[in-house]
């Protein structure tokens, strides 16, 4: 396995195209931090070349009205694990438009998005798995799970599939709910207060992703950002 190349970026770093080279191994982390309070429009292209393996993570905490377009292009025998987590509050608005394009055969992709929407925030997700005509033996799956935590919060989702080859595995799943009542109940029966239980569940969602980072300091920083945001929502 080639050595993993790790890239950590924030808005303004100016990198519109991220490439995982042929037979390469890439870890890419993008963070929109809480202290960013402006409107933001961004566009990124991620290319995974033949035989490449990419682990890509996007975290959205800040911004006022954010419009993010991400196009992922997968070549022959390439793989990608793509995770997005957004955590919105007050009147934040986030629109994600993502296209996962399997351009050649034998591609593999797992695209998982989790969203926590509190206050009067609005999270919109539009994701599209496109499997081109000759991209046989492709395996692509998209999941998006949104948790609505505020009375005025909204969520719009449009997870699409556009399948033009037949010898493929393709699927998607989506769910929208409050933080799971059964999980909360279980934690409360263990003596944990409700808000702390919610915090624990959110922490678990982040840890599930940040634990995979090669640089644990980045993971700790992102987790800390998530917990501070939670505290500002629930404890003022």
């Amino acid at each position: 396995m080639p050595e993993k190349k790790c890239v950590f970026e924030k808005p303004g770093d100016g990198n519109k195209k991220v490439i995982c080279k042929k037979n390469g191994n890439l870890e890419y982390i993008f963070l929109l931090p809480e202290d960013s309070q402006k409107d933001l429009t961004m566009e990124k292209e991620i290319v995974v070349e033949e035989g490449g393996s990419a682990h890509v993570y996007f975290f959205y905490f800040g911004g006022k009205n954010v419009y993010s377009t991400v196009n992922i292009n997968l070549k022959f025998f390439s793989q990608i694990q793509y995770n997005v987590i957004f955590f919105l509050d007050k009147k934040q608005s986030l629109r994600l438009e993502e296209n996962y394009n399997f351009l050649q055969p034998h591609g593999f992709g797992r695209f998982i998005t989790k969203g926590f929407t509190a206050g009067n925030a609005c999270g919109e997700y539009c994701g599209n798995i496109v499997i081109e005509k000759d991209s046989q033996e492709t395996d692509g799956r998209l999941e998006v799970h949104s948790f609505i935590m505020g009375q005025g919060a909204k969520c719009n989702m449009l997870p699409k599939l556009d399948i033009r080859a037949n010898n493929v595995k393709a699927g998607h799943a989506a769910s929208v709910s409050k933080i799971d009542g059964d999980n909360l109940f279980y934690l409360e029966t263990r003596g944990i207060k409700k808000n702390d239980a919610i915090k624990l569940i959110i922490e678990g969602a982040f840890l599930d992703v940040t634990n995979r980072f090669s640089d644990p300091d980045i993971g700790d920083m992102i987790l800390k950002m998530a917990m501070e945001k939670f505290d500002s929502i629930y404890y003022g």
Partner: protein
Amino acid sequence: MPKYKRHKTQDVISKSSTIKEAWESRNPAPYLTHSKKGLNEDLVRFISKEKNEPRWMLEHRLASLKLFYTIPLPKWGPDLRKLNLEQITYYAKAVDIQSQDWKDVPQDIKKTFDRLGIPEAEQKVLAGVGAQYESTVIYHNLKKQFRDQGVIFEDLDVASHEYPDLVKQYFMKCVSPALHKFTALHGAVWSGGTFLYIPKGVKVDMPLQAYFRMNAAGMGQFEHTLIIIEEGGWGHYIEGCSAPRYGIDSLHAGCVEVFVKDNARFRYSSIESWSKDAYNLNTKRAIVGRDAHMEWVGGNFGSAITMLYPCSVLAGIGASADHLGLAFANKGQRQDTGAKVIHIASNTSSKVQMKSISKNGGISIYRGLLDIRAGAENAVSNVVCDALILDAKSQSQTVPEMKIENQSATVAHEASAGKINEDDIFYLCSRGLASQEAATMIVNGFINPIAKELPLEYALEMNRMIELEMEGSVG
């Protein structure tokens, strides 16, 4: 172990071939000499005058025509620009008098419906039947036991005269002519269709059926189905339709409106097998009251382009809806179908299960909308769509939109796409089935959750349609 009679492929295909002959049969259409192609205000006034309609209906038609001219074609979905609306015959009357006895129906028309099995089904399993040929209903009947309970099952043209207040109260209140270009067109030129009224507390325990048949080349059919189920009522209504193929575009822009009042239950089933040169741009919607339940069960096999998204508006607390659908897209076909559910009230629930099959270059698309409004506390919804792509030429798309404005909603959606597992084919072949039989059996299993909700005779017909479509699919 019970002995099961194994159906030989040839026997099944021969029965399926009888259905195919019924669909493809054509009768002469001398009545077309009195009809013109294209649409204008004179035609709309002519239709209204022919039917001796009240003033309000003529005004409604003319207002709809104005809307039709102003609303553009949709910018999403299949490309409709090739549909030449000026080459469609919007109104053609094959017979002057409607019958209540099949003996009184002209022989050539009766023969068509005989081949489709309608009179036979009426005797055996149905509470009533309406049969529409081109623009008018040529046969309508309801069994006495249901008439005596106050059930009204009539041709809508007749009902608009016999029950004018009832029709006026509900007509195009569920589906507005302003909804899109083809509801506006429908509002202007609608003709024929069904009026079904089930009074409070009455349970109609046998299905009612309407069958719509386009015969002539380049026809348009715009039947309107208006269904009112009063509180506590029960009913099941089945629609079938077909048309022969001429290689010239034909158009079906029907409309179905269903009002399911509090505590009522209603199932609307349809099997659509329009010819493969038809545009099927149908609009169906139900408004569901408190603790009421609505079911849509549908199979779409025909037409070159279908755009069909039955919609349930869950307006009453505790209302629920189930949508079960199947679409089969063969060569040259684009089946753009799905379901829309709008949760307005609290404690509402919905379930959508869609299956699609694409073969020989066909394109099947699931297009859905799940809209949970801010006031819909504790709404629950589950959407599942599965697509089977039988060869490398075919395509499948899924476009399920979800808009959630209430934090107490619980929504889950799942979709998958793939081909028939080769190991399953191998297993069945090793048990003595030919590869095509094996593929057909697997596909029938795939659609079974939908087929089993239909009355047996219609489930069998759907299976036969699958067998016809599957011919030549393996190898």
